[in-house]
């Protein structure tokens, strides 16, 4: 291979890498909010969620480099986000005490009612923490991300019936937690 051919091959490689990086950045921009929000909801901590989000996108980039066709990037990203957050929690990095979600904006005219709503929202956010890993992932993907049960099942690698059962149990557990929380307060 002469030197001109080598230079041409090197230029082509650089062009491909630049093209992949540009394509990746575009995909990242269109999915970053979804991934970070999901990670935040699963981990309950923004800094951990940012770390998890970074890990998810780096895995995504490596996958693009392997030239694997990705027909459903959102589905893939949800699945990997759940797995990465699961790993985070297993390593003890994503264990949160009480969530530090953004304070809701009070729009209610009655301050007493506004306080109650705020407290209820805090209690509901905390109720996510009492769920098992799978239940939480199912609720976050179904009730907060708005995926269908079939999509949740695909993301979690479970059967649809299993996901439905997990979602039902999780909803009942959360309702009971919030009610007992307020009973203790009263």
């Amino acid at each position: 291979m002469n030197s001109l051919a080598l230079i041409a091959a090197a230029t082509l490689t650089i062009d491909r890498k630049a093209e992949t990086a540009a394509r990746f950045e575009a995909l990242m921009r269109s999915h970053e909010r979804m991934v970070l929000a999901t990670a935040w909801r699963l981990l309950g901590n923004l800094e951990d969620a940012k770390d998890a989000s970074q890990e998810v996108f780096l895995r995504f980039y490596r996958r693009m480099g392997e030239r694997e066709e990705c027909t459903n990037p959102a589905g893939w990203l949800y699945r990997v986000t759940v797995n990465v957050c699961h790993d985070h929690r297993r390593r003890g990095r994503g264990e949160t005490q009480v969530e530090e979600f953004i304070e809701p904006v009070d729009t209610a005219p009655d301050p007493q009612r506004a306080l109650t709503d705020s407290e209820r929202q805090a209690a509901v956010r905390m109720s996510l923490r009492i769920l098992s890993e799978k239940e939480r992932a199912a609720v976050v993907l179904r009730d907060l991300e708005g995926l269908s049960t079939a999509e949740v099942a695909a993301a979690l690698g479970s059967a649809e019936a299993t996901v439905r059962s997990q979602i039902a149990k999780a909803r009942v557990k959360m309702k009971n937690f919030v009610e007992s929380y307020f009973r203790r307060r009263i």
Partner: protein
Amino acid sequence: MNCLDWEERIALEAGGDLPATEVSAVEQHLAACSECRAFRDALSGNLELLRQAHQAPIAEAQLAAVRARVMAEVTRPPRWRWVWLGGLAAAAVTAMLLVALRPARVVELPHVAVCVPPAPAPPVLRPLPRGGGSVAARFPSRDRKGAVLASASEPEPLVVKMITTDPDVVIYWIADRTADRTGDTDR
């Protein structure tokens, strides 16, 4: 039928996840059971609260921070390149050190065989003439003596033949000793 048996289906109904085949049965039960209706309403309210609690938008700065971290990783040269460069640098340094610290080169001297020509024959003393002779004849003067010994002590050049390891190279070292003798005489 116990209401506990309906709990899971009502929880699914509250979020719109009940399979179509079961919807009518659950709706019939709800229409007949006020406790289960309250249960369904509480679940629905809780779900609404959960959605509200997570509606807060994520700040653009947080997204940009993650994006910057990821893109920095993505555009960074791969680690193996640094390993290669480090290896090359280490090899270059090692080579330089070896050159700088290696011992002085031992020059192998040529294998020299010295061949000294045979020593000159001892001086031949000729008998003096009989019957005395003059004192001068019996005790030859210094000049005469010198003349007598002249043939024996005539300096021949010293030839040293050096044979090297290379069969094509033979070194002859020829030393003219006349000057040495002259020097001795002058002293």
